[in-house]
């Protein structure tokens, strides 16, 4: 599973708030230089996981390790090499970009002031306005710029594009990609922008109600999920269709009239042929799916968490 060399390890993590279990025995690892997208509906437990990962919250059980060190116990040392962009920007509202740069330059072991200034100019964030007066997108860009200028080995981004317009979202992703190209940073990102992350993430983890239910490579996930559409034979009942679909791990099935519209987790050629015969299918089509479609199929039925 995870090796000691993996810069980011979550090991049987559980987090409880009173009686509510927010994170339930979650384990995953991100190897060096890879991008891991942690997905899930609101309240699935992503933020709590991240909180523990960066040593800001104490785990109820299990542990998190960054760069080989326990997140809770060694937070101070870890943060020398880890950058965190939280969901809600937490830059002190009275600090301008320049003041923030000055402050971080004094407290971080690595600080690339030139890169910081260049990036701010590139993304057009005003340098002397207090952070409280910046727009949400500008604040996010500022946060990302501040984090990247410290040249971290691991980057943790909690929903970095939440609430941003399409233009800013693109710019932010471009900056992230640029960072990946330049320094091969290990990245953990949670997001609802599935289209945006689709091209970037190497691995995908999907959390549902506190548990990690899928943990695969992006390519693997996209390679195996397919959308099947066909028309069932006149003599076939709906129940037969569902039974025939079962071995292919259907994630979502819609039966409208004689039409069948199913999203399948493991459709292979043999199974397809068998299925076609079983229900006397006609006009069968098999399509690939976007990450978003896969996600909605997997998580669409559950209740949105708190």
């Amino acid at each position, binding site marked *: 599973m995870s090796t000691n060399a993996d810069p980011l390890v979550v090991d049987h993590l559980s987090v409880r708030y009173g009686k509510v279990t927010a994170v339930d025995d979650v384990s995953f690892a991100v190897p060096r230089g890879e991008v891991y997208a942690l997905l899930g509906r609101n309240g699935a437990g992503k933020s709590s996981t991240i*909180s523990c990962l*960066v*040593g*800001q*919250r*104490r785990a109820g059980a299990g542990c998190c390790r960054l760069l080989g060190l326990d997140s809770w116990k060694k*937070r*101070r*040392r870890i*943060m*020398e090499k*880890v*950058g*965190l962009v*939280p969901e*809600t920007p*937490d*830059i*002190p*509202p*009275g*600090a301008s970009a320049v*003041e923030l740069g000055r*402050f*971080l330059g*004094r*407290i*971080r*072991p690595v600080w690339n002031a030139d890169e910081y200034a260049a990036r701010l100019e590139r993304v057009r964030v005003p340098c002397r306005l207090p952070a409280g007066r910046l727009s949400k997108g500008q604040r996010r860009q500022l946060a990302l710029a501040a984090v990247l200028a410290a040249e971290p080995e691991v980057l943790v981004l909690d929903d970095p594009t939440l609430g941003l317009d399409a233009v800013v979202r693109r710019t932010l992703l471009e900056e992230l990609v640029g960072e990946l190209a330049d320094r091969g940073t290990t990245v953990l990102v949670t997001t609802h922008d599935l289209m945006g992350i689709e091209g970037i993430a190497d691995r995908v983890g999907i959390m549902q109600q506190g548990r990690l239910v899928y943990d695969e490579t992006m390519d693997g996930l996209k390679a195996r999920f397919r959308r099947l559409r066909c028309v069932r034979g006149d003599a076939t009942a709906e129940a037969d269709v569902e039974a025939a679909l079962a071995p292919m791990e259907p994630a979502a099935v819609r039966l409208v009239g004689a039409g069948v519209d199913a999203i399948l987790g493991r459709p292979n050629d043999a199974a397809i042929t068998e299925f076609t015969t079983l229900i006397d299918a006609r006009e069968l089509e098999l399509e690939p799916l976007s990450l978003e479609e896969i996600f909605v199929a997997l998580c669409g039925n559950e209740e949105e968490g708190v």
Partner: protein
Amino acid sequence: MRAFVALVIREIDERKALLAAAAVASLLPVLAPLLPSTGPNPAADIREAVLWFVVLTLVPLFALLLGATFVGRDLSEARLGFYFSQPLSGLTIWFGKLAAMMFLIWATELIIMLPTMVMAPDPFRFLAPDDPLGPYDPLWYAWLPLWLGPLVVLLLSHAVGVAWRARSAWVVVDFIAFLAVCGGAWIGLGSFLFFFTPGVVKIGFFWLVGWLFVGLLAGGAAQIASGRVDVRRGHRAMSLTVWSILLVAVLCIWSWTWWIRAAAPIDLDEARQVALGSAEWIGVRGPSTGRADFQPRFVMNTADGRWFRAHSSDLWDMQDLVFSRDGSRVVWLAPANFGSSTLMVADLDTENPEGRDSGLVFETYARDLTLSTDGERLAVIQGSTVMVFDIEPVTQLAAAQIDGDFSPQFVAFEDDDRVRIESIDTSNKHSAENLFQTRFLDVEEKRLSDGDEPRIHFRRMSVSHEGGSSLISTYDLSKDEQRLILVDEDTGEQVAELGKMTSWSNIRVIGNRLLVFRQNDSGGHVEIFDGAGVLIHRVDFGDVGAIFDGGEITEDRIVVGLWSWGSDERPSPSLESVIINVADGVSESTLDGYAPMMGLWATGTSAGAWDTGALASRILKGEDHTLHLWDPATGVLKQIIPVVQ
């Protein structure tokens, strides 16, 4: 270190607006004199008054606001994560923020004061204003609350803010622990209020406040380091830290106060009060290092060194140890509460006497306790009522209310069934000072006799050692005249008259001699009479303002205190102490700078004086006025306690 400084600067930067507000506020005292409503007072006074008003309202307010928000708001608004995502330790974050807040508070205070200071003739006075309670009371410097007070407000506001935001069940723990600490402090210190030793209470109070300060500092650090972004966890860490520190501090107080009360005679620095009982028992009381203003008291046997504790209060003359005349029992009052006291009893005849609670409680001020000769009965005055009790077991035998102008002052057992009551005239109808009236209470029949002719009387009645005569002074109301007479105890017949007095005098019995200290127009002198009332010596001191008894040194020597008003040569009043030899009637030497006030006195209010001479000489050796205690088995000198007058 660099990171710490950077954080401090950042936090100060974030709240620059406060300094601007302080600058505006600093103008208020300057502008105040320009207002028409301030009247004709000098501008400097107006400025100062307004300045203190502004400082004392604004600074605590700022401290309150800063305290509630400097960590709390960051927690609520999820901004503390900014610091936690940096390579900064929890302690750096806490103490960095705290240092920034301290700077802001002190800076705002100074800024507010600055214009007024600049315009005042003595600017530095504002930094350490005059202490209204006097400059010699070291715990009440006014600068302390001015500069450290806001920090305590800040820390308390922070603690309360955390508890408030956490909304966890730990508030219950906080509440219970708070009660426990307060209760614990009261248990440890409260009784010292009854003992009227505010020094102990003060030290205890400041000890707790100091540890509260430390506790809040440590608690805040724990909250940040252990709780981080989790407010509930932080509250828990803070509560555990603060209360464990305070509970330990309370335990320390318990230990200290236990140790205070557990004093032994060896712990006395000096003997401030020495009371002579009969035979070998004495009472000794004095200060002890490490016990603040609590003066332990012991009843000690000078022959064999046995001792037990008899702590008392300074309040209301509760200090008296009352010995029975036969030396078998000693009683004293121990404070039970504000105003009430219990009677403590010790039987001196037993092997290891100890003070024990008799069970007799006096709800109000009880005074002039007197034991019967055998120590079985107690007479006491409460208000205008005289009461007589049996001690073992405690039973009230009789009570008599003395109404009218004369209120009871002194009681004495004539015998086990008869109590003499001396009442003093409180109406000031007569020209004589201290007019007394005698009445007798029959214990068996519970009957109070009528009053006799009022007379002037001295504080203690004394009986000469030989001859069994009583010394009484009478006051003839018709002639407005006071006479001193000697009366035979058995027959009640007048034995001798020692002369008329027209002014206040003092008498002392030493051995079998009677000394009368008199002062009249011709000056002050001491008359020495023998047991039959015959004048044997007279020592004159010339013109003095007052002459008084300064106490015995040995059997034959006493100190006479002479008070003189100022003269042209020596403008200020002076006190002189002269030693006279009673046997020869010779004035021997003068003690320089020796202020005789109480000396050694024979306590006990039975109608007699004891032979203090032999006992006093055993205790006092040499000219240095010390209390010597020997090990009776080996004769080795064990302890020397200086006797301070």
